[in-house]
């Protein structure tokens, strides 16, 4: 495998990439809510948002206006400082994690655009060689958002929500880490670019074929990490009102939401890059297109699962994590290690 010579990455390019990620992911997160509502509606034979704009497309704008203009309420007995920064932590960690993830293929801004013309924008904002570790670390740090939010708001539901946050995120962190250890052993690198390169050989070289168990484990853990059904125990309405987000309103609540959607996208990207061949061209289909397709598929999968499956109890969650998934991951690593050694 020959690494192509890339133009030099300038700090301007990184900043532009950062802005692009921030803008697009935020927008996509917003759009994601629309998609979620639509998909869930269709699966229940409903119409979903219909009335704002064509096909309800402007519903996002309406929701945005609503979120921005909604009164920002801070409960009397809440720890105000922590209460205020907790959503920021969630959103920030989600976006920071995206820094080490290749989001779009790299490109150079055409020359005719003044000022920025000729700047090379990399596919990955910070191509650090421990990319995966960084992403996982950042996502793990995201646990502080819900945890602090729940504890700061002086609300019993919030406390329960944050307790669940702690056990769920910490537990599944283990599964995530162990599940991708086997592919890492195969690839021999922690860089996502290397993962991509490893699978450049077309459909058959995708890691999913070598590591199906790791893929499934990663996916399950990913659902848990992003707090999606069937593992949405942190803010499950039927049990804990809204969990850690009970007392939040307006844009602060919106930041949790954006963070959650950003995380979903992160996980979708990671799964696509690590197991489904990344942004390599597939036959005649362009790489950038195929990665969007893959991400979209994972995103859709999350919604699809939400529409189809019931959520599980906290004890089942823990049971699944420690008694099923973790041993499986261990066995998978063992077998992979033996195969690699041989």
């Amino acid at each position, binding site marked *: 495998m020959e690494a192509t010579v890339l133009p030099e990455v300038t700090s301007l390019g990184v900043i532009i990439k950062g802005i692009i990620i921030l803008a697009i992911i935020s927008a996509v997160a917003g759009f994601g809510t629309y998609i979620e509502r639509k*998909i869930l509606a*269709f699966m229940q*034979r*409903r*119409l979903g948002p219909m009335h704002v704009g064509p096909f309800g497309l402007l519903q996002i704008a309406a929701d945005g206006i609503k979120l921005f203009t909604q009164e920002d309420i801070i409960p009397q007995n809440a720890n105000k400082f922590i209460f205020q920064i907790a959503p920021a932590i969630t959103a920030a960690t989600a976006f920071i994690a995206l820094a080490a993830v290749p989001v779009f293929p790299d490109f150079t801004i055409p020359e005719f655009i003044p000022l920025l013309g000729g700047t090379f924008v990399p596919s990955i904002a910070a191509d650090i060689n421990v990319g995966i570790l960084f992403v996982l670390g950042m996502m793990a740090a995201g646990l502080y958002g819900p945890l602090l939010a729940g504890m700061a708001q002086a609300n019993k539901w919030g406390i329960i929500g944050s307790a669940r946050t702690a056990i769920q995120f910490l537990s599944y962190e283990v599964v995530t880490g162990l599940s991708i250890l086997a592919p890492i052993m195969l690839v021999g690198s922690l860089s996502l670019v290397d993962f991509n390169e490893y699978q450049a050989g077309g459909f058959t070289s995708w890691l999913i074929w070598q590591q199906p168990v790791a893929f499934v484990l990663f996916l399950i853990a990913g659902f848990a990490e992003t707090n999606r059904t069937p593992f949405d125990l942190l803010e499950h309405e039927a049990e804990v009102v809204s969990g850690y987000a009970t007392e939040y309103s307006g844009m602060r609540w919106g930041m949790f939401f954006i963070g959650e959607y950003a995380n979903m996208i992160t996980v979708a990207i990671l799964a696509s890059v690590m197991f489904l061949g990344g942004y390599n061209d597939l036959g005649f289909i362009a790489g950038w297109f195929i990665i969007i397709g893959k991400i979209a598929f994972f995103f859709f999968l999350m919604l*699809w699962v939400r529409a*189809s499956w019931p959520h599980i109890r906290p004890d089942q969650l823990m049971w699944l994590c420690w*008694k*099923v998934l973790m041993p499986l991951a261990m066995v998978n690593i063992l077998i992979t290690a033996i195969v690699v050694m041989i």
Partner: protein
Amino acid sequence: MSLEEFKNRNTGQQSYKMLDIKHTPQSGIGKFGQVVERTVKGELFVGLWVTLREMGNALFKDNMHTIKYPLEKLPISPRYRAIHDMLRLLESGHYRCIGCGLCEKICISDCIKMDTKYDENQRKEVTEYTINFGRCIFCGYCAEVCPELAIVHGGRYETASEQRASFSLFEDMLTPIDALKQQKEYDGFGAVSPNADDTIKQTPLAY
């Protein structure tokens, strides 16, 4: 007759499909086995398939269940109990209410009131009639008790209004005189049964 039999209230044709639910395994191995079994059998994918199929049906086979309410409305049963209507006699156009006050009496939320007087034709005339829709629970007793089928429940279920009194006066509920032709008979509680002629005893009137 045993009590068991007495308690069996499944009177209709039953076509239940019994689910084969196994007991939850107690041992660790058993539980693991269950997980493996379920994983292998792909039960979860059945669920996924169902929702996907429904989405396909909804989108492409026009099997969408949503009624775009203010634009589309479902037909309602003739026995539906919404805002009351006061009917008129089809022949003369005079309102049917004779002011007997039975609706006023039977009303369990005590929301019907009427004033009557002796009119110049030596008849009982209803001078005023109101229903307090803040209290009405739409139980339908008034329609059931009405001997003249004068007060019936209509189909006007859109009852949000700026004023509480908006629907509550006699004139509001009365069939407009120009819409007499469109007046529909009520089939709900209190209406004459289809075989009424067979069930009543006839009074001899041979002259």
